[in-house]
């Protein structure tokens, strides 16, 4: 199943996306490589920090997944070194260190996202997709549009099929995030982190309930449903199913 390229134009389709995985555990690395290859990416694996840093500096990758704890050079040092060379390749840090402080350290050093082990492959892939997408996104958008759903970021107003939607602030932020990443799988954790800004497991099905509420407002029965549930993974906002 490849989710790449929907609504992105042809440029990205023609050009193969190259990803570097720096991970010392062979099985985990294999899984990352398999999952990302399944998504249509070309993935290189570096099994230690020295090798990884070398490739990151000279390999022209579109994205790097980076383990925090590596032989020779640790993840934080690698991301710091890359950023010092003005290489702005998105970096997804993958770490067994889940503490909030560790996350802050990772992001402060220049990581773009932080995923804690043990993780689900889909979660990792979804984050990679979103990071790649962010990179190609035009800087200043005042309006987001998916099919007949329009979000005015200046007026903080959403309308569907010409009808204004009555959204609560949280629902607006949810919809904004989903529309910015339309066509991508978005996991519950990603929604919780980016919409609410917290980094813990909210438990239960509370994100689902929030999405359910938003869905009732956005997807009127008469209209084409835009918010889709991706079984076992999360959600996707898209005009295609």
């Amino acid at each position, binding site marked *: *199943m490849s989710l790449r390229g929907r609504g992105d134009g042809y440029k990205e389709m023609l050009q193969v996306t190259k990803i570097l995985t720096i991970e010392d*555990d062979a*099985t*985990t690395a294999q*899984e990352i490589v*398999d*999952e990302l290859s*399944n998504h249509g990416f070309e993935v290189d694996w570096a099994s230690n920090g020295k090798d990884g840093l070398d490739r990151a500096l000279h390999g022209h990758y579109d994205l790097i997944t980076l383990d925090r704890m590596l032989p020779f050079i640790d993840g934080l040092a690698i991301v710091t070194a890359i950023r010092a060379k003005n290489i702005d390749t998105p970096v997804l840090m993958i770490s*067994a260190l*889940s*503490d*909030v*402080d560790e996350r802050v350290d990772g992001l402060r050093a220049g990581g773009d996202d932080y995923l*804690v*082990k*043990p*993780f*689900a*492959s*889909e979660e990792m892939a979804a984050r990679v997709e979103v990071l790649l997408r962010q990179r190609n996104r035009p800087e200043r958008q005042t309006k987001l549009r998916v099919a007949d759903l329009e979000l005015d970021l200046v007026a903080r107003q959403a309308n569907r099929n010409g009808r204004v939607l009555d959204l*609560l602030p*949280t629902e607006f932020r949810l919809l904004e995030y989903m529309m910015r990443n339309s066509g991508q799988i978005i996991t519950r954790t990603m929604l919780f982190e980016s919409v*609410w800004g*917290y*980094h*813990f*497991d*909210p*438990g*239960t*099905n*509370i994100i689902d*309930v*929030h999405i*359910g*509420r938003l869905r009732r407002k956005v997807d009127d029965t008469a209209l084409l449903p835009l918010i889709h549930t991706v079984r*076992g993974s999360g959600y996707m906002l898209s005009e295609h199913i």
Partner: protein
Amino acid sequence: MNISELSRTVAFRLTLLYSLFFAACVIMLLGFVYWQTATEMTRRVDQILTLENIRLAGIRRDHLPDEIDKSLQRDLRHIYFYALFSPDGRMIAGNVPRLPPGIVVDGGIYETNFLATNMQAQPLSARVLAVHLDSGNTLLIGHDVQQLIEFGEIMRRAFFWGGSLTILLGLMFGLALSFRPLRRVEQIRQVCELIARGSIRHRLPISKHRDELDMLAAVVNRMLDEIERLMSEVKSVGDHIAHDLRTPLTRLRAVLYRMQQQLGDAPVQRAMADQLVVEVDSLLLRFRALLRISEIENKQRREGFKLIQLSEILEQAFNFIEPLAEDKTIHLSMVAEHVDSIYGDGELLFEAIVNLLDNAVKFTPAGGRIEVKLSCGVGGARVDIIDSGSGIKESEKMAVLNRFYRGENELQTSGFGLGLSIVMAIIRLHDFGFELGDANPGTRATIFCWPRSV
């Protein structure tokens, strides 16, 4: 440190006991001195009286009144009494108007009080000897013992003041002596309380005096060193296990997921694979929750702490959980008084409150109520979450705060039993208080947002 505490110390009690004992010794010594002196003085008076009797016995009877007068004239200190009574009791000569009562006229010496002619104002104490003369008259010879009585008076005053002063000084000395050990005990108590609250790194203070308290403190400190070492060993074993489990769990999940993706059209196997992925995911969720608890518990630093507005956090949590309540047709309401901003980690407090609210929603049947209240408590802000659910049995209250515990009636609701443990870890990190109480019916969960140590 008050008087009642001071007076309970060993030093004070010992000092008081010593001073009582010392006071008793002083009194006994003074008593002995008095008794010896009084006996000696009495003996000498009696000797004088006997000698005087012998002297007067040698005087001719008809010269006796003259001799008595002369003797009285010689007695410039007025300490002698003489009297000669006729058989009908009339005084013939001397300075004692009548025979004092209680005197047996047999030559023995008695002590008595009487009014002398030269000292009409007050009765005098004297030792008196009376004899029948062969002429039928009665001769009385007496010697004043006022001195002896005054001496006794002085001794009694000495007893009183000496005893009281000794006891008073003993009391003061005892209080002063117990002050230092008690201050040490107070220091030790404070440190122990810190340790009991989980800061195992503290040690008891040891002074340079090397006294018995220092000996005890040194032993306790050695014990604490050992406990800390064991705890860190257990923790590092636990952390290692947790750490080592992360990678295999990630692999397991990944391989299962890959299998699920590649099964294609085999409905039975697919269903089994789906089931497996769901199970592994719930395993991962519990595992993360456990790691989260030890993460919070291991947090010694309070780097994330800053001044935060509880009302904002509550409102966020309220808005976050509100759809969940609405789905279950539970009426969720919030009342927020104005409270001062508190010092804490907003993200963790949000997590704690969301957990409590989530629990409340779980335990409240459809159609119930949940009320969130922010108010001013005794020491600062307090947050109450009151639900109309089935409540928690008194016997279960402590248990529900433990890891993995689930109430009996929770079996049909989802949850991993770790929510309240996370809440407790967060509360402990903040040094706040937490209480589960009755709301009749239902449960009242309260966070007291001020240090427990105050």
